[in-house]
């Protein structure tokens, strides 16, 4: 019973974390048809910049609570700067290329950013534990949980609801949906697809960096964290269906609970469970649980 509660809460926390990372990835794919490997780099950049800023901030004697704001600011800054540079400086010249080629292009960006991070922050690891430590622990049914981790659920809800409202209740969001459903039609009714792409990529990048930034206090930020996260994020969005927001949520929950269950019941099976689900979903529903298939017209 206790392990059931632990699996439940760990699963939700883990799913929330995955959702924040996955939603940016799926948004970019949905609008731009780019499976963005560099999303892993944005995650790592977000984590590094947050870790570095927190380290600097706690050297000073300012109110500790503002450190959460710092993570947010770092993520937005990183997302805007790198998202803009990558999209305007590179991707927009290659929109006529094949989907697979675009994966390789973003893979190249990923490789470059790996070294950029090493050059900027070195190869030693950062442990910005303070924001997590500050909120303390809480006991649920006798089991100790870190309050900060539970707050990630809140973050995921805020991100999910904001994206949903942004897409469905604002004019730019509706234009975005128009582009997702029919790019050519969107062009003919005068939507500036180029601008929509830039905005989407920047928002997606901010979300990736946000995921990294709020993860930083939980982990030791060191080279290679982007490498691990990107395959996991792929699993999440593929399970849900590439390009689907609801799918990212469902994918995150499936992977989150799957991993939590494995960790508590059969720790060796952790990775196997995640990619086992991904394989099964691809085999049974190639376009994911929420994806759409199209039949070619001849």
């Amino acid at each position, binding site marked *: 019973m206790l392990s059931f509660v632990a699996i439940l809460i760990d699963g939700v926390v883990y799913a929330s974390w995955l959702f924040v990372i996955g939603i940016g990835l799926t948004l970019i794919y949905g609008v731009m048809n780019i499976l963005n490997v560099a999303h892993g780099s944005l995650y790592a950049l977000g984590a590094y910049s947050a870790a570095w800023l927190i380290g600097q901030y706690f050297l000073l004697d300012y109110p500790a609570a503002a450190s959460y704001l710092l993570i947010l600011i770092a993520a937005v800054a990183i997302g805007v700067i790198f998202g803009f540079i990558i999209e305007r400086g590179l991707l927009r010249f290659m929109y006529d290329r094949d989907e*697979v080629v675009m994966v390789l292009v973003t*893979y*190249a960006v990923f490789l470059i950013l790996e070294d950029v991070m090493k050059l900027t922050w070195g190869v030693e690891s950062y442990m910005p534990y303070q924001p997590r430590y500050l909120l303390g622990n809480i006991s649920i049914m006798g089991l100790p949980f870190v309050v900060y981790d539970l707050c990630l659920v809140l973050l995921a809800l805020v991100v999910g609801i904001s994206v949903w409202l942004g897409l469905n209740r604002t004019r730019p969001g509706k234009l975005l949906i128009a582009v997702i459903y029919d790019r050519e039609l969107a062009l003919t009714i005068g939507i500036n697809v180029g601008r929509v792409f830039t905005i989407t990529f920047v928002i997606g990048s901010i979300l990736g960096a946000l995921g990294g930034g709020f993860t930083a206090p939980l982990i030791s930020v060191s080279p290679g964290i982007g490498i691990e996260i990107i395959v996991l994020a792929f699993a999440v969005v593929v399970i849900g269906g590439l390009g689907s927001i609801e799918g990212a949520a469902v994918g995150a929950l499936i992977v989150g609970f799957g991993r939590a269950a494995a960790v508590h019941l059969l720790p060796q099976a952790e990775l196997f469970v995640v*990619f086992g689900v991904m394989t099964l979903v691809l085999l049974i529903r190639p376009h994911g649980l929420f994806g759409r298939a199209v039949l070619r017209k001849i």
Partner: protein
Amino acid sequence: MTHQNRTVWCLTIALILLVAVQPVLPGWAVNMIAMSLSNGLVVLGLMVIMRAGLVSFGHGLYFGLGGYGTALGAVFLGITDAFVLVLLGIIASTFVGFVLSFMIARYRGIFFALLNLAFSMLLFGILVNSIVLGSTDGFSVPVPSYFGYVPSSAETRVSFLLYGMICLLVYVSTLAVHRYLNSTMGYIGEAIRENEVRVDYLGASVKQAIMVKYIISAILAGMGGACTVLLIGHVTPEDTVYWTRSGEFVFVAILSGTGNVAAPFIGSAMFELVRTYALQYAPEVWQMLLGATLLLVIMFLPSGLWSLIRSHDRKREQT
């Protein structure tokens, strides 16, 4: 026809040269050539499916199966003969390739790439948690024998026999793939990449063609993995089946281009050469170099390094 025969001649001459110069080459050069050839086999396999428009982000799976098949045979079955060990590796990768080909044949584009990624990560998940196989650290493989002959300890790990065996395997595989790609079955790959509907309406089985290509690529990747493990004498999950390794093979394949069966080996040799120097003199920008090269090749040399050789060739024919 003359063009095809010329490839055969060039490959034969290359084989003779490579074997002949071995005794006078320094150890590091022998090692580098052997490594390039082994990894080139995997890239040759990728080339076969890339001609059909399919890119796999998980061929580390077959590379790893070949490597682990060989390593397990040596350590757990006590087999010492190099040829038998390589054969074991190939059998492992071929078997899995055969089984998975039934599932993978209906996938295209990024879904093909992703399903391969998922398969490879499944194996990775198994290997890193297998304590008996050394988990993330992997395990060492003893020096093999060759038809009963055991290289003396004075010889380096990369003995003339191992080197010669790799050269021979590469030669035979390359000729076979060359012959295959020039057959109707081979050309169906290009036809599938261009227009599956037409292939179907011409009466050829797209599914069967893709399965055959996939199995060929699994065989070659397994062979490459088996040779690489014998060369290094050690096997770990991260150096064989992890997605970064699969990505590296795709990188070399894009760099090489799919124009000729020799291209993967030229690309692979370039890659090894640059890696050796970069890791020695500027390790902190090695991946940046890779990324920048990949971007440049995609933008300005979409048919890879081979197109440079071929355009030179064309100019010569015109004059």
